[in-house]
């Protein structure tokens, strides 16, 4: 497990999944790829298929229709993997908490490692969040060695 996780942290490939969001978080994720923010400096690339990804970026409030798909996509992901929830909707559903189509928050559907709040979080916040995730995993690795 340890070796695998270490290898993953060198250059995490991210997959982006929208589960009923308003596009804002999704656009900000795409913004991270474009020249001003350029997330590729950290070795992060947006992967086309979930089977190539190490980190799952989830946005949106997990509506009933996409909940099943999220579960299925998480199952297809090669393990070990990391999950980042981006935006207020995926944290607590924000405004949509009383919506008839958003029954549970995303972390009741799949396990989440890092939460990035904001509506939408700025690209800087997203990058900072993912970098923090990497540091967190590294620290826990060191703990485990002791």
């Amino acid at each position, binding site marked *: 497990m340890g070796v695998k996780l270490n290898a993953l942290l060198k250059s995490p490939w991210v997959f982006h999944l*929208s589960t009923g*969001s308003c*596009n804002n978080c999704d656009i900000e994720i795409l913004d991270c790829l*474009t020249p001003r923010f350029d997330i590729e400096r950290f070795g992060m690339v947006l992967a086309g298929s979930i089977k190539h990804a190490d980190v799952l970026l989830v946005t949106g409030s997990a509506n009933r*229709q996409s909940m099943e798909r999220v579960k299925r996509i998480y199952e297809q992901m090669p393990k070990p993997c990391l999950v980042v929830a981006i935006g207020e909707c995926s944290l607590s559903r924000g405004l949509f908490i009383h919506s008839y189509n958003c029954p549970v928050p995303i972390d009741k559907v799949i396990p989440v490692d890092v939460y990035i709040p904001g509506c939408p979080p700025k690209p800087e916040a997203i990058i900072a969040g993912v970098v923090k995730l990497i540091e967190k995993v590294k620290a826990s690795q060191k703990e485990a060695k002791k």
Partner: protein
Amino acid sequence: MARTIVPIGPYHPLQEEPEFFTLTVEGEKVVGIDVRVGYNHRGIEKLSERKNFDQSTFVIERICGICSTSHPYAYTRAVEDVIPMEVPPRAKYIRTVIAEGERIHSHLLWLGLAGHFLGYNTVYMWAWKLREEILDVMEILSGNRNNYAMFTPGGVRRDFKPDDIPVVLKKVDSIVPTLTMLKKAVIDDPVLHARTKGIGVFSKEDAINFSALGPTSRASGIRKDVRKDSPYGAYDQVEWDMIVTENGDVFDKVVLRILEMFESIKIIKQCLDKLPAGEINANIESIPPGEGIGHIEAPRGECFHYVRSDGTNRPVRHKVRAPTFMNLPTYKATIVGQTISDATIILAAIDPCYCCTERVSVRTVKGKKLYSGEDLIKLSQAKTEKIREQLRK
């Protein structure tokens, strides 16, 4: 010939919103299409009935991140139509500036994605880099990159600061040369001509039958624009042209959107020059029972809101009709008869409110052949490459 079913979606790597398309193909040719939406349904119409009129504005803003001005604009106009009332002139100008800024960034976003689908990642990167400048302008004016929270029934919530206006004007001016360069690069490109001219033609009759909206219908030669037909905000007090093209193919839609951005820049500059002094909010006391309709021209077409009030502080019914709702079914008319490598750009041509191109798998009837991942985009990009090769010879 054997029919093949090509499912697209619901999760792609490049389009924002999940949507599920089923293309029926015969060899290379698309013969049928079906769309399943609902992956983004959050029940906003029902939620809006729980909130009061002021709170609803913020729910409405989160219908769509790109249209985060259009929906509140249409909604506030609907509420003002219930009363009925006029907003103060300064608020009108401020609203117009914000709405046009949104149009520029939305069109740039689309242009970049369209470039990506065609295998022009340079266009993608340039357009999105330019878009950052506009987002900076919006951040200066409203305080946030998206979700501006500027609108409220009766006016706007924030005033423009006098110090900001010269900075904004300078920034807006600075994007014009790059935009002109981008326009030349896109319009004069022979490969792009080969890829988009005559592709996905949307005829005028179909546009009327489907009641298509915005750039999708204007590219087919229909002169309809809410900003001209039913002027609101400051649109009747500034000079600008409605862009209309005739052919209805993808190329015309690209050109139309690029030219519209220049008009938007014109509108923003005039509005900031002429900005009248005075109040920014009419401070509505109460909303009487009745019903109201607000419609405005969003980047993708007419955005329509219907609000019914019963005299309390909450709407009894709030109907939201986004432009893509009318534009999405037009796939039936445009995609049938085209080749599968053109499918992505035709699907993208109406500028649907989705952006995360999902996993695509192509499967023959027997289920033997399995392409995975971004193969549709790759197919499209390979075609561009082929045309490029031919042109080099």
